[in-house]
């Protein structure tokens, strides 16, 4: 079916502004993705899946300008022993990165991986699976045009986290990165990500986790106020595997984080959590789709948003329990703390269940600061400002505590504290 003319034009304009990297093992996947994105068209405001978030600035040919943040606050995760890999405006920086070598892990750049590569079985494959039943054209665009990214193969327990640091030096950079992570049976990796990446950032990450594999992911999207990002995680979990991902978002004029999770092996566990703090011109969208397609799997979605000065938070989260996915345990909570009457939270929780022996719960709330808690803290001598901050940290706690590593929890909490105290002046 032909696309509506307006969508066709917007898609053509965007594609015309991009160059597909040529050659290598990924060529076929890229060409397939190009054909798919041409067929589905890039999103516009009329798409149901983009009802609460305007995609136009994510789709337009050039990235809108985003001023660089001047801040003397040190970058997050500085105290963590990790393998550092730096991207500047979406381009790998060998000078600033550690050697791409660690026990039980192989790391290649997408840009220069050899022609025969394991990633061929994952690159674009999980992304393609994630296009049903809802199209995610920005991720498909990413598969076709990603200019850089990492291919990480984990064969055992990684001795320390891999830490991806994204720096933003150009006010008009338009980065498209695509990472592929493959966790072998029984292997384990923690991946950290932080930094504003680019004026506009399109990132896709595909994570294939084999039976008994474990993947921890802690991400901090912060700093620059005017940056835009559309990110997508596609993951498929084998038997008894574990996927746990947490994202903190602070600042950014527009962020859409999609996560598509397929539980295909019995007894697998997937947790996806997010905390965001937004002030003023801030729009943050978490869109999650979890498919239970095996026995006795557990999924948890915990999303908390703190919004002030007219900031907007969006949550679209769906749990699909397929026929036969008995003993599914699904939990979903999305909550906002609205610090004033100008901010808004838009939530669309969905459950679609075709098995009869499952437990799925979901809840969504919006509220103000708890007056009882505030009085309790003030009655102990804590001023209203710091007391409100403590209660805000308390509000985010359920999401932050989804991070298993306590030191990483502390890193996140200290960032939130600093963000809040800057706003008190």
């Amino acid at each position, binding site marked *: 079916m032909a696309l509506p003319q307006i969508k066709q034009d917007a898609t053509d304009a965007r594609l015309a502004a991009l160059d597909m990297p040529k050659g290598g093992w990924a060529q076929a996947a890229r060409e397939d993705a190009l054909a798919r994105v041409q067929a589905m068209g890039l999103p516009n405001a009329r798409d149901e899946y983009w009802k609460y978030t305007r995609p136009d600035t994510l789709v337009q040919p050039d990235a809108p300008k985003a001023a660089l943040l001047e801040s003397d606050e040190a970058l997050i995760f500085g105290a963590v022993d990790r393998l550092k890999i730096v991207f500047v405006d979406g381009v790998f920086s060998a000078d600033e990165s550690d050697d791409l070598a660690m026990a039980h892990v192989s790391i290649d750049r997408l840009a220069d991986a050899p022609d025969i590569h394991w990633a061929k079985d994952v690159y674009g494959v999980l992304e393609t699976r994630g296009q049903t039943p809802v199209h995610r054209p920005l991720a498909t665009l990413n598969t076709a045009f990603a200019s850089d990214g990492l291919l990480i193969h984990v064969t055992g327990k990684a001795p320390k986290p891999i830490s991806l640091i994204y720096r933003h030096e150009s006010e008009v950079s338009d980065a498209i990165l695509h990472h592929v992570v493959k966790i072998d049976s029984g292997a384990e990796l923690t991946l950290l990500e932080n930094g504003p990446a680019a004026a506009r950032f399109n990132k896709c990450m595909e994570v294939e986790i084999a039976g008994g594999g474990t993947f921890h992911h802690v991400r901090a999207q912060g700093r620059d106020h005017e940056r835009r990002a559309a990110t997508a995680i596609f993951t498929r979990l084998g038997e008894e595997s574990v996927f746990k991902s947490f994202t903190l978002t602070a600042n950014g004029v527009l962020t859409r984080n999609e996560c598509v999770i397929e539980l295909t092996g019995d007894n697998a566990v997937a947790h996806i959590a997010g905390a965001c703090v937004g002030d003023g011109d801030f729009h943050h969208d978490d869109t999650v789709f979890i498919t239970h397609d095996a026995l006795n799997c557990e999924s948890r979605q915990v999303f908390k948003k703190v919004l002030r000065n007219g900031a907007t938070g969006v949550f679209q989260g769906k749990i699909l329990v397929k026929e036969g996915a008995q003993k599914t345990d699904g939990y979903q909570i999305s909550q906002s703390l609205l610090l004033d009457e100008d901010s808004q939270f838009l939530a669309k929780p969905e459950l679609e269940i075709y098995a009869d022996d499952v437990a799925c719960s979901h809840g969504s709330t919006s509220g103000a600061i*708890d*007056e*009882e*808690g505030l*009085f*309790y*803290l*003030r*009655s*102990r*001598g*804590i*001023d*209203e400002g*710091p*007391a409100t901050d*403590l*209660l805000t*940290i*308390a*509000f*985010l*706690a*359920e999401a*932050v*505590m989804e991070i298993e590593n306590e030191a990483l929890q502390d890193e996140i*909490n200290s960032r939130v504290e600093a963000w809040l105290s800057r706003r008190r002046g």
Partner: protein
Amino acid sequence: MLEIKNLHVQLEEEDKQILKGVNLTVEAGKVHAIMGPNGSGKSTLSYVLSGKDGYEVTEGSATLDGADILEMEPEERAAAGVFLAFQYPVEIPGVGNMTFLRTAVNSQRKARGEEEMSATEFLKVIRAKAKDLKIDADMLKRPVNVGFSGGEKKRNEILQMAMLEPKMCILDETDSGLDVDAMKLVADGVNALRDEGRGFLVITHYQRLLDHIKPDVVHIMADGRIIKTGGPELALEVENNGYADLLAEAV
């Protein structure tokens, strides 16, 4: 020390008078108990003194060492020396008990223009005080009141009181939800803080708490007023005969 004169209070949201002329003076070094039937205004008095929103003072005054506390924000009252041990302590997930207490202690010190307590000093002091209240290291680390039993929550209130060293301690039904052993522990904590410079206002339904925290003065409150004041024997009278006789007398 604490002087309450002709205090009239109504709920802000509805035109309902709760306190109808309370007169009460608590001297330094003394323990005053307030007993009374449900709905008599006991808890309201404690909230009004500590500065909770939702109440409007329509007449009268309350001063601590001559300073008008009703004009102060709750945190200013705390720094001036008012402490309320809550009937229902609030749970604060994600905020460690120690962090909370250190923030409170140092906020008060800062407000009074005193030097803040260092982390090391704080740790030393809190460990000693926690030990007396049988509060273990784990409870100090856990988020404020989250997952605490009823008894643990009340002990935690007393620990806060011990750390903040207020001049005027108001205990709002601290005995509610406590078994005999827990009540004894809490009472011991309170007794340890009895001091010439410190006043106590102990609000309770029952005589039993007063077996452990011996009051100097007992007040009976009904329908927003103190209707009778006496010595410890007044509490025993209530225990034996209930409030009915006293209420009849007051009319």
